[in-house]
């Protein structure tokens, strides 16, 4: 039983990895290439050494309670 379980888990890992590899190259990869061609940045990494501040506006305060039932 232990051997069967372990075999099953190993198969699961292989299948998961294969599926995630497809998602990574077909989904993440294509999006990344298109975004780079279009000049879109997903992480703001650049330094602005001449700028005065890196603070950005945030409006995190009380909202309607229904807004908090959402996970986004």
């Amino acid at each position, binding site marked *: 039983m232990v051997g069967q379980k372990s075999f099953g888990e190993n198969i699961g890992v292989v299948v998961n990895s294969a599926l995630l590899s497809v998602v990574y190259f077909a989904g*993440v990869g294509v999006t990344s290439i298109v975004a780079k061609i279009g000049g879109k940045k997903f992480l703001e990494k650049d330094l602005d050494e001449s700028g005065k501040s890196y603070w950005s506006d945030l409006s995190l305060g009380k909202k309607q309670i229904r807004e908090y039932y959402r996970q986004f």
Partner: protein
Amino acid sequence: MGSKYVLGVSCFYHDASAALLKDEVVVAAAEEERFTRKKHDASFPVNAIKYCLGSQSININDVDYIGFYEKPFLKFERILYQHIDSFPKSYKTFVSALPSWFSEKLRVVKMFKKKLNCKKPILFIEHHLAHAASTFLVSPFKEAAILTVDGVGEWTTTAYGFGKENEINLIKEIKFPHSLGLLYSTITAYLGFSVNNSEYKVMGLSPYGNMDRKTNPYYDKLKQVIDIKQDGSYRLDMSYFVYHYKDRMPSQKLCNLLGGPVEKRGVDMTQRHKDIAAALQMITEEVITKILKHIHSETKMDDLVIAGGVALNSVYNGKILRNTPFEKIWIQPNASDGGTSIGVASYIYHTLLRHKRSYKFDNAYLGPSFSTDEVKSFLDKNSIRYDTFKDEKDLIEKTSSLLFEDKVIGWFQKGMEWGPRALGARSILSNPLNPKMQEILNAKVKHREKFRPFAPVVCAEDAKVYFDCDDPLPEPVDYMLMVYSIKEKWRNKIPSVTHVDGSGRLQTIRRNQNRQYYDLIKAFGKKSGIPILINTSFNIRGEPIVCTPYDAYKCMMGTGIDYLVIDKFIVKRDNNLQHAWDSEKYTND
């Protein structure tokens, strides 16, 4: 009208926890690690939740509202953006990290159903709002400026704003990948320590380094990795980091800058390591000082509350009131992610349900406690030899005598502490006057790095005699959150708690918080002339602080603790050697 119960939960990153509010009062709170015995356990805190509910004899269906400490989909968006940005370098982390998102992190509602058979809707509060609420809404202040600084939440890594009555507004932020917390963690990893665990060791190492900006060779080097503006806002030069796409933190470029590869675990710390730690601490202090001065000028408020993992930097916390215009400060004892469960519950109760505030956090003993009958039953069932104190006076008198005779005492009383520090409920106590006590404690129990001193505990009204602390004494000192200088004339009298720079990470105690603990310190003072004890966490190296009588007894028998004082009983290790074992064979820290 019946009481309203609100449950707050945090999990799936590190330090999972649960907290329960009965109306506005925090009646129970605990971290999951204490039950599962896995340090910093991030798993769904089913044990902590069950403890919280059990403490009030209610079940999950009696809870009126349940809150979670972040917005999982927003966090997942950030993770996806990291991978898109870093393609194809992030392939390995994508394949290894994504399954846990689909199996649990994006299934919070289902986890409540599966683990607790709970079908109630869950309220999701943004991570930094939960941090802000965890400190402001339980603080003594009606109005205060708020700063939250941690590794990362959904996107935010640093935020500030203000709180007024029962409302919070965070108005500015710095976003991932720029993070002061992750900078600290990166250097922690570089020095061979574990991330999200050993940052405090780097803080403790820093005074051994060169704390002079002009002559520390690593200060200017580390300044190259961060661009700090006059208002304290900052960005990291991401070429020095790889944490946004790999499962490690420093890049090869950072290793080259600091003159060597990432250290292996357990390597002896040289002056170079100490100087790097010192440079990091100086830069961290510089950034936070600038931020706080900016927040003060923006908010015009004199009271300050802070939260997030960086708020556990007790070395800097002790300097805040001296370095900035703020007049008062409050930090909740569990300032890191574990503490956000109190934040979400308080935010729901006060802000969303519009209840006025009158509660102020002043009791850290929110974890499981055990009755005299429960303790006696445990001792009897396991054939443990013990003696019973006649009364509390006898307990204080005998225990203080043992401490004065340089015995190491496991002290188990009241409810378990909330937060990472032992505060006199699950503590190991000993005599700080003995110059060899640091060595003795390390040999017998703690086996910690030589550079780390032990912490002193002193009664609040005596603190000013021995320490150069702020006046009036800030309340966070009660939770071991501020480091102060020990007055020169006392340093050689209490060497075991005096750090290399003459400082001590003291805990102050007031009699109304923990009578026995307070009386014990006073009784020890009568014998020794100095009412200060060493207080260190009651745990085996690499394990969480003990929770139950079984954990405490097992810890004593696996280490060299001489006596366990538990409720009204005293257990001598040497009388129970049939249960002795060697904990060092099993440690992993």
